[in-house]
């Protein structure tokens, strides 16, 4: 089992464009770590640096205690599954599976047993003689996985491997990848911009934005305690609601005042002080309709069956609300609402960082 350590890794393109800036990251042995972020955030570059497909501008990468950032990709004992699968179009499935073994000098008969075993495991035995272009997306995906697994690498790297599949297949493959991780117990690094994938599969998630690591934690912690406004806004559907306001001193200590919400007392919120501008954030499931001081107009109602999403408008602010499906509302109706006071997150206006614990 391999621990991956990135130490002050930087990647510059051109003179001063940082794709990855000063990244310190430890990926524990056997962990399924997801690099999550919008496109262009540096997550793929990071993955490619681990693979050896991109050079580092500065910094070091270690596998366990061995520095590997100067090694050629083939010498790092990693396997990678690409977004477009990158199967060798001129080789059939067997040839694709065999290729990494050949490059490692595995003898022929041994190769054949390994191919058979892998094909069996992934249920692609009947496809062995086909060319990649004769396969469906899901089948190609399995072959790509097989090619990665077959030589028992120390580390698996996934670069958005599910994004070319349709929704149903994606769900199946997610489960399958989780099972695979459990069975193999290998260190896996997974890149995606899809938070659902990140939340469902990962041991931990590292959220990246603009080349920087924003937060690294378990999926639950990322969701419930986002480290900054970016993470808070990026993770979760619908997006967390934000309302602008200012801290000020009130009768019972520090309070947060906004135009929309009633004054929120926040005594003892560490890092906050009077006069500081901030956003208060709260998730849609933590809004209660029909009570409270805040008022807004219903603008959209989306009935999803098991629940209903309601979009409220109040001036420039929009508030998303998740509610029971049996609620009776009409568009244009004014409603009262309230946000659960213990589920509020405050983010400084200046740097977007979380205020308080």
């Amino acid at each position, binding site marked *: 089992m391999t621990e991956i350590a990135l130490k002050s890794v930087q990647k510059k393109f051109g003179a001063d464009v940082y794709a990855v800036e000063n990244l310190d990251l430890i990926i524990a042995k056997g962990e399924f770590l997801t690099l999550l972020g919008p496109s262009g955030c540096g997550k793929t570059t990071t993955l490619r640096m681990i693979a050896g*497909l991109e050079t580092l501008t500065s910094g070091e990468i270690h596998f366990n205690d061995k520095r590997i950032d100067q090694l050629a990709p*083939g010498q790092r004992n*990693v*396997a990678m599954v690409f977004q*477009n699968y990158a*199967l*060798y*179009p001129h080789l059939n499935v067997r040839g694709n599976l065999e*290729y990494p073994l050949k*490059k490692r000098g595995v003898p022929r008969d041994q190769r054949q047993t390994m191919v058979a075993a892998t094909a069996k495991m992934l249920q692609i035995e009947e496809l062995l003689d086909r060319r990649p272009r004769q396969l469906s997306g899901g089948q190609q995906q399995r072959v790509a996985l097989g090619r990665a697994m077959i030589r028992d690498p120390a580390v698996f790297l996934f670069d958005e491997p599910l994004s070319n599949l349709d929704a149903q297949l994606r769900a199946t493959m997610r489960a399958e990848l989780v099972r695979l991780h459990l069975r193999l117990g290998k260190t896996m690094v997974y890149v995606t911009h899809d938070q659902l994938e990140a939340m469902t599969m990962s041991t931990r998630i590292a959220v990246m934005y603009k080349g920087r690591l924003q937060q690294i934690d378990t999926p639950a912690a990322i969701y419930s305690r986002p480290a900054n406004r970016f993470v808070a806004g990026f993770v979760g559907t619908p997006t967390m609601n934000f309302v602008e306001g200012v801290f000020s001193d009130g009768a019972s200590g520090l309070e947060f005042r906004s135009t929309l919400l009633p004054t929120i007392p926040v005594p003892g919120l560490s890092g906050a002080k009077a006069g500081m501008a901030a956003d208060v954030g709260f998730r849609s499931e933590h809004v209660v309709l029909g009570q409270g001081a805040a008022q807004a107009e219903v603008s959209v109602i989306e009935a999803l069956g098991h629940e209903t999403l309601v979009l409220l408008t109040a001036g420039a602010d929009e508030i998303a609300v998740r509610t029971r499906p049996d609620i009776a509302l009409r568009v244009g109706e004014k409603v009262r609402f309230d946000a659960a006071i213990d589920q509020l997150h405050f983010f400084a206006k200046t740097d977007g960082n979380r205020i308080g614990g």
Partner: protein
Amino acid sequence: MKSLPMRLAGLAATGFTWLLVLAVTFPLLWMLGTAFKRPTELFAKPPTFFPHAPTLQNFVDVLEQTKFTIYATNSLIVATVTTLFVLVVATLGAHAMVSFKLMGRHVVARALLLCYMLPTTAVLIPIYLMIAGLGLANSLSGLIVAYTSLTLPFALWLMRAFFAGIPPEIEAAALIDGASRLRAFVDVVLPQALPGIVTTGVFSFLICWNEYLYSLVMINDDRTRTLPTGIMGTLVNGYAIEWGMVMAAATMMSVPLLLVFLFLQRYVVQGFGAGAVKG
């Protein structure tokens, strides 16, 4: 079901298309027809389209009275050697330009474009001086050098477009699977580039096969002449143009090429679309 006027219009368009296609190919057909005609029929009024009494005499005459076979052999040697040489060089070069992040590769790309578009006539004289300086004037090797200068920029250009169209992940996958860069190139990039290589080869062969100016200026010796200057020198700038023989020679010079093309058409058309236009 389409309405009758619509179907009639479609039929008319089809007819027009075929008329146009036949008009465009007419010179080729006329060449073939002439090549098989006897001298008397050649000047017959009204002219005949299909030879009444087809004869191979023109072909025999060309082969016996001129050094056609020698010219053809020379053309074949020059075109083949140049094409193979240029393909090797350009394949390596284009791969380096596309999949290695080399410093100055953009400058190289610009310079390449410039070379690609230089007027041949401008460098003809200095290139000739240089080839003569190497002691290669009047030889097939000299022509190979000259034709390399004609085809290499073109080949690099086309090939670069082809290589750029190969998903880089395929090479990356091979690298991760344990191949060296060179190995990955041979194992997975080259097979993908094959249509491009074939297309480039066909076109570079065509350029060499057709070239007139360099061959005219550089080659004095009848035994080292290529087809265009050979035919021009013996059959056209001779003391009498015998059109039957000229067309027979023209047929022998072009028809094998057309057949090869038909065989490789799938690749070549792909090449037009992908590389040639994308620039």
